[in-house]
């Protein structure tokens, strides 16, 4: 038995370098670089420092919301309520500020409300045994949007204090503040997913909920945490958006849930759960931002932009399916 004689410490990390593995890891990034190359060739205004910073700034809200959506999708779930939670938090933070609440307190309150609404999604899912996260988050999507309209009376709440507007419109040197926020959040989520027990539990739940449960993973608690995180990032998105627009408007974030799902999926996460990374999601959000920006520069109408984005979403996932099927064939 030669295996028996091998010392235990010789078990190497299994990190063979192969084209499919590289493609899996860097595929979305490669797509982003190619896209930038094409758009740079098509428009001389695209590859300028100002424009690139602009893209980062414009992608920030989607990137933040997508981080929460990513964590949900890793558990094989979906969160349809993030756009509405964003809208409600946008209105609430503006109202608090207009009522004279200090900026940091208003921000903390908005984040807490976003996280609580998300946690309610999780509680509905796990304690009421609703059959699929689609249902509680669809309900919350309507409830939160409705509340945003009720509270605001349907009108935007404008003229916010400048101290608050920093996170949406300000910058540190030449770096836009929202970009700093996105980097901080990405770092935090990265640590959470790869270094924390709860983060790894989330991958296990997405990969096989039954095995996770029978291994002592507190599945319900983790799912509630996951939806709370998603609500939290939606609220963070609301703070950026309210700052940038200088108002809290009740229809903020309409469609944000679908944009975030698109970014996560383009970034290589699997709808079946258990797979997905922060870096991929960030690249996915940037691909969407670059596409919108580049097509704008090329004077493509907003209507056609939507068509292009739809095609990109399907194509990105299809490429992933083709790659996986090829890998499966090779291993059989």
């Amino acid at each position, binding site marked *: *038995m030669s*295996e*028996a004689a*091998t*010392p*235990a*410490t010789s*078990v*190497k*990390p*299994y*990190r063979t370098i192969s084209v499919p593995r590289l493609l899996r890891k860097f595929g979305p990034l490669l797509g982003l670089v190619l896209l930038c190359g094409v758009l740079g060739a098509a428009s001389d205004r695209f590859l300028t420092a100002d424009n690139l910073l602009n893209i980062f700034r414009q992608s920030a809200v989607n990137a933040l919301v997508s981080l929460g959506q990513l964590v949900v999708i890793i558990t094989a779930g979906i969160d349809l309520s993030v756009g509405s939670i964003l809208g409600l938090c946008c209105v609430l933070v503006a109202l608090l500020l207009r009522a004279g609440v200090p900026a940091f307190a208003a921000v903390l309150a908005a984040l807490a409300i976003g996280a609580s609404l998300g946690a309610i999604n999780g509680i509905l899912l796990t304690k009421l045994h609703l059959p699929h996260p689609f249902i509680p988050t669809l309900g919350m999507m309507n409830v939160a949007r409705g509340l945003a309209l009720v509270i605001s009376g349907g009108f935007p709440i404008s003229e916010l204090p400048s101290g608050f507007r920093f996170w949406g419109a300000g910058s540190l040197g030449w770096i836009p503040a929202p970009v700093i926020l996105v980097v901080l959040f990405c770092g935090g989520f990265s640590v959470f997913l790869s*270094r*924390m*027990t*709860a983060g*790894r*539990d989330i*991958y*296990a739940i997405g*990969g*096989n909920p*039954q*095995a*996770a*449960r*029978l*291994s*002592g*993973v*507190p599945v319900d608690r983790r799912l509630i945490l996951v939806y709370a995180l998603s609500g939290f990032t939606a609220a963070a998105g609301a703070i950026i958006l309210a700052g940038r627009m200088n108002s809290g408007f009740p229809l903020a974030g309409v469609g944000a849930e679908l944009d975030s799902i698109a970014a996560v999926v383009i970034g290589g996460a699997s709808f079946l759960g*258990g*797979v997905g990374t922060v870096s991929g999601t960030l690249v996915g959000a940037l691909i969407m931002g670059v596409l919108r920006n580049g097509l704008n520069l090329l004077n493509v109408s907003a209507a056609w932009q939507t068509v292009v984005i739809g095609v990109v979403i399907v194509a990105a996932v299809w490429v992933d399916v083709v790659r996986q099927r090829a890998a499966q064939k090779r*291993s059989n």
Partner: protein
Amino acid sequence: MDSPILEACHITKSFSGNKVLDGVSFDVRPGEVHALVGENGAGKSTLMNVVSGVVRPDSGEIRWEGRPIVLNEPRDARALGISFVHQELALVPQLSAAENIFLGRHPASRGLVNFREIHERARDVLRGLGCEIDPRRPAGELRLAERQLVEIARAVAFYSRVIIMDEATAPLADQEVAALFRTIGLLRGRGVGIVYISHRLPEVFEIAARVTVLRDGKQVLTRAAGEVTPDDLVRAMIGRELKERLELPAADRASPEEALRIEGSLDLTIRRGEIVGLAGLAGAGRTKLMEWLFGARGGRAGRIFIEGREVMLRSPVEAVRNGLALVPDDRKLKGLVLGAPVLHNIALAGGRTRLFIRRGREETAAREWIGSLRIKVAGLDQPVVYLSGGTQQKVVLARWLHAGARVFLMDEPTRGIDVGAKAEIYDLIRKLAGEGAAVLMASSELEELLGLADRIVVMHRGRIAGELARAEATEEKIMHLATGAAH
């Protein structure tokens, strides 16, 4: 005596060089119940798959009313009038009982289903079986026994002349079994031949005219039920020559310290260093017992004491916290996160109280387990989906060793594992016990239990039917308890 409707003559069938059926002959006459018994893996299912057209035999002949026939696919068998009522009921829960009965051949005109006709015909068929189920009720709302009747009604509506029932009474309560037997009586009166597969010998004697015993793919016995005793059947099922014991473990390695005790509708104590075998036939409740102990299943079968302290195990989280480990019966479904790397699968249950993962320590520990359990993997990052069954099972065991479990609940720990890996798992279980762990091990392989266990607890229909000390335990005694023949 009537001549047989369906005959299988000298059927032989091999799967990848493994002879599953070896010259088996079997027949059913009109209005007769012919019981087919044997241990798990004796070849019963394969034989029935042959006569229902699912599997083609390598050699041998199938005759229908005396004429040789060839069954290429299940449809051919159904067209003749052979129906299979499966153990796992195959009804569409959303459809009504009537729609299920006529599924796939609704009486229809010009593409429109005539529901009134379906309901009336379904009611007639069900009445004919002596039951009053409303044919409009969705199958999902019916009780298990009623669903079974719907399946039988389905067979009757097909004008079946031979109905094969595979462990039909396994999920039923006593009075439901009685009702099923009345239905079988009605079917017999109409000249339907019934093949009755069961683990429960008292039932076989109650209902069958003839019995056939299969063992390791061979036909051991075919006799009129009145000419044999339960003892004869048990002996035929396990074979006269009792197989060699795996090994005699060191006597009395168990310490007097109790590790796990259950009090209530089931009474069971396991001491530290002891391996307790849990025997029982399919559906006896072994998996249920283990999952209940592990907090993974509701209900309250009794009080649980770990190391003398009473504990409430409301969820697996609490079971793991109390030092319990569950090696589930279905590795892929319940044991492993298949797409995740070896490292994560090993580390999943350990270090649960920590907020952050200690990567370095975890990797070192995982490498040590991989070395000491001889887990053959390419590396810590390899997804477990690509590993062999035995290697996967070792990953599950490594997880619980890593978590520091002290009481191991193992449900069929060697199912679907090759011989070499089995021996390694046996060694591991012995070593665990030698180091003071308590092991409760359920297995359908009696040899395995006889070779490993210090005591064998036998379950029958959700209860403990008896307990055998190592010295007195034999396959025969276990089978007596497990089939209920002892009562």
